[in-house]
């Protein structure tokens, strides 16, 4: 897949992650003040919160393990080798 297409896909995931993060941090759009209905013994907004959390978890899993957008072990050796050749000011043990 081209770098351009990967960038777009990456951006798409990031936007979805950002939206779901806002929903995990605030009940915008699914929770209102006052009386509530119950779903499986929970207030409806709490049920939706847990579902949104679960959805975000699944999407993160797909991003990290099922796409070619994340880092994989097969890439590490080459990256680390290239980085080891760089010399910076701080010394290491």
């Amino acid at each position, binding site marked *: 897949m081209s770098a351009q297409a990967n960038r777009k896909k990456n951006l798409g995931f990031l936007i979805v*992650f950002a939206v*779901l*993060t806002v929903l*995990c*941090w*605030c*009940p*915008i759009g699914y*929770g*209102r*003040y*006052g*009386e*509530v209905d*119950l779903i*499986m*013994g*929970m*207030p409806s*907004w*709490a049920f939706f*919160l*847990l579902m*949104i*959390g*679960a959805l*975000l*978890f699944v999407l*993160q*899993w797909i*991003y*990290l*393990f099922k796409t070619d957008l*994340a*880092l*994989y*072990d097969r*890439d*590490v050796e*080459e*990256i*680390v080798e*290239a*980085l*080891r050749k*760089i010399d*910076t*000011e*701080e*010394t*290491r*043990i």
Partner: protein
Amino acid sequence: MIAVIIITSLCFVSVFISYVAFRKGFTKSADDYFVAGSSLGYFVLIFSLLASFLSAFSMFGMSSFGYRLGYGSLYVLTANLVPLGFLWYFMHKKTFLLGRARKWMTMGAPFGERYGTPMKIILVLVVLVASVPYVVAQIQGIGVMLEAMSDGIISFRVGLFFVPFFIAIYLMMGGMKGAAWVNAIQGVFFSVMVFVLFFFVMMKNGGFVPTMEMVLAKHPNLFQIGWAGGKVWSYPMIFGMASAMALGCVCFPQPYMHAYSSRSVRGLKAMFLSFGGICLFVITMPTLIGVAGNVIVPGLKGVEADKIYGLVAAATMPDWLAALAVAGGFTAAMSTVNGLVFGNAVNLSLDVVRTMRPKTQPSEYITFARIFVAIIMAVCVWIAWNPTTPVAELSVIAFGTVAVTFFALWGAYYWKRATAAGAILSTLAGVFMNILFFVLGGKNMILFPQDFMFQLNGFLASFIVAGIVFFVGSWLTTPGKTEEKSLKLFFHPVLEK
């Protein structure tokens, strides 16, 4: 007496596990002692990271929140932590790769290489200052729990020595590997015990739905947001608490230490992803146990509600099982102390001592780290000695204080124009704002929305100020030699993926 036996056994098992790590030679070199030779597999990583973050607050505090404040508490430590999967991945992907290439072992290392020594030292001190009250709160909690669980056989002050002594022993002996093994076992233990307690509590009244319907009939507000005239669980209150806890988690030492210790990228990703997923279940349970507690042990007020976890265990389980359930919360406190003390001891040994004594031998750093473990633990016990010390209140600013380093970390990895001056000013401004808000209005000003700050809480206001100072400070200053030189490492084309 059963509780004392269980807790003493847990302490001895922890020391034994650490002894095994020591005997197997996992603490011989600095690399082995500090980052477990980058050899941890993902099961240990996942549960070690989980246990090092989840404190007594996650069990006892969240059930108390659920009891007093209801379902809105789910925004404090459950679904709001799921985004850490991608937040940690993006913020610490380079920590893992650069750490492996540069043999980093501390959270100060990336800041030192990117911004220079002053920023590294400031970071170490900020994290230490933020961590101490948090550790003290855990130790005090352990003392209180031991006194209550042993029916006074072990007094509060004896408890202050009892468990920290064991923690210091296993940290000094087993290093990161021993600590991670102990954390992992404690993490599995308290996760299982939460599920067991949840089952017993819900079955007491015929299952989850009937229990919740009973609570709803008596306390409908516990199921609402924006109750008490819009004051409790308002949108700004929810957003302030949810974001504070998640952003603070990004910047504590634990994700750095675990990133350096990971054997593989697969393990790193699994660890970051699983944390939020497990919290979604494991912390939701004590919160709902607290909500259900309203029909099992009704009428608790104020600090009495903090005992609800143990009280519902006693009311629904056989004595020995209730003791095991409460011991689960106890191990959560132990593993948090363990993670924070070790992280800070490593920072002090490698970042501060190395700066002051550049010719120190690698093996000497291990000795220094062991000494710092003992000193930090002793200082924390000393502070905890007076039970009226407001450390529990002070510890609420720990997350806010550490979170202000978020921008300096992001800039180090993703913004070429970031400067040392911007990073230092931003960190100092953020810490100053947190302290100022705490002095002016206590924990309420840190945690709850304030009218004069456009409904932001002190944490978010400090965080935003730190961000503004970082960007403006970096634009107004010129990158120095260290920043210029670091670009070829931190922005190497191979890191683009």
